[in-house]
């Protein structure tokens, strides 16, 4: 479907369009002139949902910043002032607080969707890689933001995570001092975290822009994984996917605001309603739920973990854990090349489909372990799950691609759709 620029009748639109073609830009980006595969299912809603949440987070964040005081003596009280005395401050803050969880829910589903349907494969490798960096930027932003209310979990979470960097040889301690702006998590830390927490969302916006740019070059993948080519494979984005995304937004808002109004602290830790106290360590320091799988990988690396043995002569177990944690995300950058199969969609990959779900289960298991204290069987299970995470991506994915015999693939989207309609 070739897109010819649309004509505008309204003289004002015409006048603007002639000088700045903003309306045809919109039309070719999310309008009737942007062709999308006709068979996208509801798993394709989560990208736009993540984008909507990003906008909500920025809007509520700007208002919160007007009332927040980034100082160790006032931060906790200023948040409580927002909750008690600022008009609808409780609403704005609960939206922002739960919005973080919603963002990660949408992005994780979005990523698993990409993995299931092979959306990362040629020619969409860069689109996928930019997405991995979006995830990293989100994680940094979320971590920084969680420190700002200056509760016990804010303080101790910040202490644990920043201390990780001390494992880096030679420069580690200097780096941690730089992060802290001193010799412990203190007022300078809070100030720079606040500054960076306000900065990073704009970096996110930039990354999302590039992500969408890359998306618009080769357009969406689809559940069949067969490239849409024929005109009848496509439908215009507007009105078909605009209305579908709007409906998805309605469902998301019911879910999202259901938590905001009826269980606003469901995703939170009670300890964060205790003001930060450097003299009292909480019994269990746990990160927010969306970091738990990575936290489990970090903690899996003990001196007697077999994945640590090959590098034991080179580094401490702590450093190995830190590297493994970052590698767990960064390895996804290589996924387009680790996956040796030419077939995109798991619809036609019976073996890989099973292993995909086992991988999802493994990620959930890691999340479960991350929430548990590092003791007894939890350590062993965490280590096995950590091993499997990397084993799946580095060994199973390439091997299955070579050994598996995929099911026959339809010639085009339209033939498959018409066939299924008959």
């Amino acid at each position: 479907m070739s897109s010819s620029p649309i004509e505008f009748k309204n003289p004002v639109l015409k006048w603007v369009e002639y000088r700045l073609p903003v309306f045809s830009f919109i039309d070719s980006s999310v309008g009737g002139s942007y062709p999308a595969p006709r068979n996208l299912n509801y798993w394709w809603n989560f990208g736009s949902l993540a984008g909507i949440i990003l906008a909500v987070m920025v809007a509520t964040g700007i208002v919160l910043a007007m009332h927040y005081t980034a100082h160790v003596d006032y931060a906790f009280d200023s948040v409580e002032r927002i909750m008690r005395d600022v008009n609808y401050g409780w609403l704005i803050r609960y939206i922002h607080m739960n919005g973080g969880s919603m963002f990660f829910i949408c992005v994780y589903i979005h990523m698993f969707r990409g993995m299931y349907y092979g959306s990362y494969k040629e020619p969409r490798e860069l689109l996928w890689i930019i997405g991995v960096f979006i995830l990293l930027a989100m994680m940094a932003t979320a971590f920084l933001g969680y420190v700002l209310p200056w509760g016990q979990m804010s303080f101790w979470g910040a202490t644990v995570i920043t201390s990780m960097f001390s494992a880096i040889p030679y420069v580690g301690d200097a780096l941690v001092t730089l992060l802290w702006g001193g010799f412990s998590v203190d007022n300078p830390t809070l100030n720079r975290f606040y500054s960076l927490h306000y900065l990073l969302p704009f970096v996110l916006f930039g990354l999302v822009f590039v992500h969408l740019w890359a998306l618009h070059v080769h357009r969406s993948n689809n559940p069949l994984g067969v490239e849409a080519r024929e005109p009848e494979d496509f439908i215009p984005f507007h009105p078909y996917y605009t209305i579908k995304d709007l409906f998805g937004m309605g469902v998301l808002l019911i879910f999202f605001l259901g938590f905001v109004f009826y269980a606003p602290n469901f995703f939170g830790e009670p300890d964060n309603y205790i003001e930060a106290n450097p003299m009292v360590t909480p019994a269990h320091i746990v990160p927010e739920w969306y970091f738990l799988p990575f936290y489990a990988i970090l903690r899996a690396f003990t001196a007697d973990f077999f994945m640590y043995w090959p590098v034991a002569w080179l580094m401490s177990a702590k450093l190995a854990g830190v590297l493994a944690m970052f590698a767990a995300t960064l390895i996804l950058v290589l996924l387009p090349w680790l996956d040796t199969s030419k077939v995109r969609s798991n619809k036609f990959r019976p073996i890989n489909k099973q292993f995909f779900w086992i991988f999802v289960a493994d990620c959930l298991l890691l999340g479960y372990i991350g929430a548990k204290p590092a003791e007894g069987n939890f350590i062993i299970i965490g280590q096995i799950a950590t091993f499997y995470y990397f084993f799946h991506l580095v060994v199973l994915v390439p091997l299955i691609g070579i050994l598996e015999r995929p099911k026959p693939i339809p010639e085009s989207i339209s033939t498959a759709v018409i066939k299924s309609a008959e």
Partner: protein
Amino acid sequence: MIKKTLTSVLSALAIAGVVSTVSTPSQAAGGAEIPSQSWSWNGPFGTFDRAALRRGLQVYAEVCSSCHSLDLVHYRDLGNIGFSIDEIKAFAIDYEVEDGPDDEGEMFTREAKPADRFVGPFANEQAARASNGGAYPPDLSLMTKARKNGANYIYALLTGYEEEAPDGVVLMDGMNYNHYFPGNQIAMAPPVDDDYVEYADGTSTSKEQIAHDIVTFLAWTAEPELEERKSLGLKVMIFLVVLTGMLYGLKRKIWAKLH
């Protein structure tokens, strides 16, 4: 078959994952399981029982406030739960706050006004510890949110004392035995007992009733927005369900042309 097994394993895991993330202990182990009470503010239509709030304020003022502060609450906030301005002024006037400096540059004390925060019992943490055998009675403003299963936990704690520690448990000097406190040893002496207060409205003054009233009051100090939140939530939910239903209808209509 494999798919079915996988799906059930997955959903079990997913549920376990969700449950575990919300039930991560914020307390050390060692407390007994906490029984649930029925609270007027539970559920989507819950509101605070106004009479219980008044009794709870009385319990706070007569009992808790000798050790515990309530720093995040202002006297004026009582206006949101049915106290008249005269009642609030009369309540605040019993407390003294330091103000100033005056025109001569001197600090002075005056009676508290509705705009002041609840006046705490101690000037600072050191003074509080000095008066309490080294223990620091925490601020109560957020207590029901700052503990897992907060309201039930505090109720259990207040009513969970044992005069004598069970055999084999040696209490440290100045400590008390409590079934629900992590580690079972708590510095706070049993704070409520039968007839500790006298209620003007004739409500029973059993220790359970007193504990119930103070927990109701503390739930309000922790979540003063709760009633507004739930009533606004209902309107928003009705709006969203209707809107989403209409969007779904529109989606069906638009997509019907395709099929």
